[in-house]
């Protein structure tokens, strides 16, 4: 069966409602902080046992696609990234919402996500085997330098002061060292607590640093009555917005696809790198972080493009590169289907149905996104004395739900208070998150490289050299620009 014929299978009322229903559910799961794509899919997994394989898989794929996009809602409206890949979205999405442009921000995220998602699926259909080969070439040395490359985004997320940015990243890296060291079995900074053995969880920290810190700031610093900020009615994209979407689309989706393919890297790192790229290639980098549409586009396009990318190692090699992919693998296994090169020859119909369904799922984002772009911002019309406790409650519930752990609620509260003061000191929460995500990736892979063959491959492997060059460009380019600006000013 060809891909074309597969669309006939997908375009039935049943299939379409499963995909659209799945993605609606995904958006809700993604938008609620603490609930992840993985959780939503794991809960739906037993339901798929009793469906034909194509139906179950397509519903799960819809859910996955929706969840990656859904994080944008809470990131834009409440400054709480609903899921890790949306952290970068909140940097510009929330300031935009504060200006009253929440609807426009959601529309931007919708168009960016849909286009990125489509690009990801097309890459999956056309060059999956090549991408899979590429992913296998990434060993510990390559991941080490990829982490360094990701860290070069420090310039983009630091705001005005680079020194404070470094302080934030360092703090994040330090926090990431807490827990059992996987190489020596030594517990680091755990004070004998089993909770801390598996490290400080990243999501409660995000919820605290972004969400709760903002609630505290609102309580202490703004007027006591009225609403937090008003949403302007319009949510349509202007012509210049669309131009920005089209300009940002290509680099962001390329980054999303390539990074999404790498097991363990995924949407979060894709959106960091894409955001960084957007800042550095912009003529007005200072606008990022204050509500630049380009920031939302870069982040959302890249993280949804990574959905197609994440399917590459799963379908071509049977290797699940992420937790959601592992659940998809489980759903396939139940039906006696083992992904891998063999599945392409034995079940071409199913593979094509998956491709077609995944493509349709991207379009479902367009529908849900535009349908809610006008309604969702209305939540901001709720009076602040109701809204702020509600957000605080959401922060508590979200951080608890992740692992059913009150310890995580504690982590969230501490991060929230700390985040408020750090913000006052000019340390942006994004820098801490950067260190927290990339710190372990750098440390674990560097030490693994050294265990295998010493430090040399980090500098000699071809992929590493390319990544070093890219890192150098990302760091030197803004420095040169700053120097040039100073020159201009002095002249």
């Amino acid at each position, binding site marked *: 069966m060809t891909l074309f014929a597969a669309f006939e299978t997908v375009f039935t009322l049943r299939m379409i409602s499963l995909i659209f229903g799945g993605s609606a559910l995904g958006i809700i799961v993604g938008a609620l902080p603490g609930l992840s794509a993985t959780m939503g899919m*794991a809960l739906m997994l037993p339901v798929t046992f009793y469906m034909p394989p194509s139906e179950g898989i397509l519903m799960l794929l819809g859910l996955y696609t929706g969840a990656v996009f859904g994080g944008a809602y809470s990131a834009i409206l409440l400054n709480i990234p609903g899921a890790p890949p949306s952290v970068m979205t909140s940097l510009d999405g929330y300031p935009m919402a504060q200006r009253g442009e929440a609807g426009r921000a959601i529309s931007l995220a919708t168009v960016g996500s849909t286009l990125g998602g489509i690009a990801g699926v097309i890459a999956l259909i056309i060059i999956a085997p090549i991408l899979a080969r590429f992913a296998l070439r990434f060993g510990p040395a390559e991941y080490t330098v990829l982490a360094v490359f990701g860290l070069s985004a420090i310039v983009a997320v630091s705001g005005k002061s680079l020194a404070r940015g470094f302080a934030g990243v360092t703090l994040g890296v330090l926090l990431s060292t807490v827990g059992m060291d996987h190489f020596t079995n030594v517990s680091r900074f755990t004070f004998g607590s*089993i909770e801390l053995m598996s490290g400080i969880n990243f999501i409660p920290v995000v919820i605290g640093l972004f969400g709760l810190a903002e609630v505290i700031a609102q309580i202490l610093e703004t007027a006591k009555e009225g609403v937090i900020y008003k949403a302007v009615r319009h949510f349509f994209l202007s012509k210049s917005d669309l131009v920005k979407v089209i300009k940002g689309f290509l680099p962001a989706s390329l980054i999303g696809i390539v990074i999404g393919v790498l097991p363990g890297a995924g949407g979060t790192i894709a959106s960091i790198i894409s955001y960084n790229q957007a800042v550095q290639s912009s003529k007005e980098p200072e606008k990022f972080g204050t509500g630049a549409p380009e920031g939302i586009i870069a982040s959302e396009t890249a993280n949804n493009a990574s959905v197609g990318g994440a399917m590459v190692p799963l379908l071509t090699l049977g290797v699940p590169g992420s937790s*959601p992919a592992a*659940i998809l693998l489980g759903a396939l296994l139940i039906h006696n289907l083992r992904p891998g*090169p063999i599945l392409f020859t034995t079940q071409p119909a199913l593979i094509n149905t998956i491709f077609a369904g995944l493509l349709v799922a991207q379009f479902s984002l367009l529908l849900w996104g535009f349908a809610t772009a006008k309604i969702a911002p209305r939540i901001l019309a709720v009076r602040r004395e109701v809204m702020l406790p509600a957000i605080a409650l959401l922060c508590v519930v979200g951080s608890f739900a992740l692992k*059913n752990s009150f310890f995580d609620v504690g982590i969230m509260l501490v991060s929230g208070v700390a985040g408020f003061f750090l913000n006052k000191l000019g340390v942006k929460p994004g820098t801490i998150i950067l260190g927290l995500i990339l710190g372990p990736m750098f440390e674990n892979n560097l030490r693994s490289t050294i265990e295998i063959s010493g430090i040399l491959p980090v500098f000699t492997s071809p992929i590493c050299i390319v990544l070093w060059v890219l890192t150098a460009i990302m760091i030197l380019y803004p420095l040169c620009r700053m120097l040039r600006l100073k020159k201009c000013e002095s002249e």
Partner: protein
Amino acid sequence: MKFRRSCVLLLVLCAAVFAAPTAGYAAYPDRPVTYIIGWETGGGSDLVSRVLCAEAEKHLGQPIVIVNRPGGSGAKAYVEISQARPDGYTVGNTTGTISTHKFMGVIPIGHEAFEVVITFNSDPGGLWVKKDAPWKTLEEFIEDARKRPDEITVAASNPGSITRLGLQLLEVKESIKFRIASQAGGEARGPSLVAGGHVDACQAAPVTAKSLYEAGEIRPLGVQSEVRVEAFPEIPTFMEQGYDVVMHNTRQILAPKGTPKEVVDTLYRAFKAATESETFKKFMNESGSMILDWDQEKSTKFLTEQDEQFKTLLQQVGLFKETK
């Protein structure tokens, strides 16, 4: 959804407090059973448990509510299960870490602090090399390692993990030394590293390596079970090839110590029936995992022996630590 489940759990707990004295055990189970998983949602233990529980609840006649309590490779969940009311309404699953934690100073309890309901699954260790690797058999590989100590690189998970212990058991028995590359993410990444040529070999269960093996990227040298794994009749065991190395990572279901025998038996029957269900069989066979249905007696005997094996091994590799 998770929150609602938590609410349900809370209600169940309240109900337990009020209902327990009058309900008696004759009607067990008359309310939902909570199943605690000590690993993250979407992980290996999580998926296998979800498939198993979806089947078991049909035979139990009550829903099974799954709660994830990840932390310390199951340690957090073990403690929580051991402290639950021993009425059969709180159970949870283990991996081999039930026999390592107490010897490494993580938590002071092992399987003896529980009633073992069933052993439902085992994944033996295995050794894998790249498709075009120079070693054709396990013997060639080991002899080469003897000649070049600390040179052949093998990916495995962190020290003290069952995967790593399987590899170290081979080292101890044959007096050889590999250059072991720790992987923070567990054994899952090993096969990809072998296929990409980053390491010479990896230690991983067939369930982990199956995809890349079937894709023709990697090749097995042997599995560490007593008999060949049903899903892979073509892969020889270490024992067949003359190496006395057996290492299993098994999963049990635990109930708190003091759970009445009838309740444990009821649970055993429900979970045994689940292991025989079509859905569970398909899932396990396709993933390349072994199904077991050992009852309490057999499981306890196995775990007691495993404790001895792991204790000795941990002492030999210098990870043994007396618990406080």
